[in-house]
């Protein structure tokens, strides 16, 4: 069994309205050192497969097709054997 954690974030230059609002909230709480906030998502998968290479290929395909939108998002992932 493999455990995959996929990190999806907005590309540079794409307006992150949520990040901006959170930034404002942090500043108003006194965390004045915060210069930027970007919000993304974390997707965790458990899946079966023979080799890490096969899992890598599959997860890439999942990201391209569904999990991330290449127009606005970048993704990266970590695969661990369990």
């Amino acid at each position, binding site marked *: 069994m493999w455990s995959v954690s996929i990190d999806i974030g907005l590309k540079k230059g*794409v*307006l992150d*309205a*949520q990040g901006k*609002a959170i930034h404002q909230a942090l500043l108003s709480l006194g965390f004045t050192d915060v210069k930027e906030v970007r919000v993304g998502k974390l997707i965790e998968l458990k899946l079966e497969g023979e080799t890490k290479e096969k899992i890598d290929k599959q997860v890439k395909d999942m990201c391209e097709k*569904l*999990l991330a*939108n290449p*127009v*606005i998002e970048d993704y990266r992932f970590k695969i661990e054997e369990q």
Partner: protein
Amino acid sequence: MKFGIVQFPGSNCDFDCYYAIKNVMKIPSAWIWHKQNEFSGFDCIVLPGGFTYGDYLRVGAIARYSPVMKAIINFARKGGLVVGICNGFQVLTEARLLPGTLIRNECLHFICKKQSIRVENNHTPFTGMCQKGQVLQMPIAHGEGCYFADIEIINEMEKNNQIIFRYSDINGQTSKEANPNGSISNIAGICNKKGNVLGLMPHPERNIEDCLGSGDGKLIFESIEMYLKKEKILQNN
């Protein structure tokens, strides 16, 4: 002439569209269920607004892989008319039938209000009954309507006259103040390069009769009707 209105789990403007097209426009219409692998006999397919699959993952992202979408993509590739309204627009961008995508409104609020939009191109099957520069009143109701695409894509769409509607004030000025959601270049509606697929955030079906405001939304459906009638005459000759 027949319109098909697609029902996904979470569509909630499906009956508004049906009422607008069938009861007000008097055009034969039928439902298309999201699990259908195929359909036939339709001249125009409408993807209505709503919150397909609860807007999970990204707006429109799950609906894009519904069985019916393959048939819609084929229909569009063959030149069939497809209109996506609000969430329907989001589904069409996820399906790559339209360029770019729609992200969270700049102001973070869900916006539900009357809005003016300016017709940028009236040489399309969807706007033939409008004047270029005409200002239409159409309600908007969305949380994720901020249109985004790379600047190269925006420039290309501009060159090909693919930007069909822009948010404006009542006088047709497309200022920052008139932009409700932060969309690039005040974009409210676009079409594909071929010109047979339209996506727009405003709801024409919600301003279809005078008693609902001005009835401006009717112009979109009348344009499609006129276009299809002309097409049929050309085909018969």
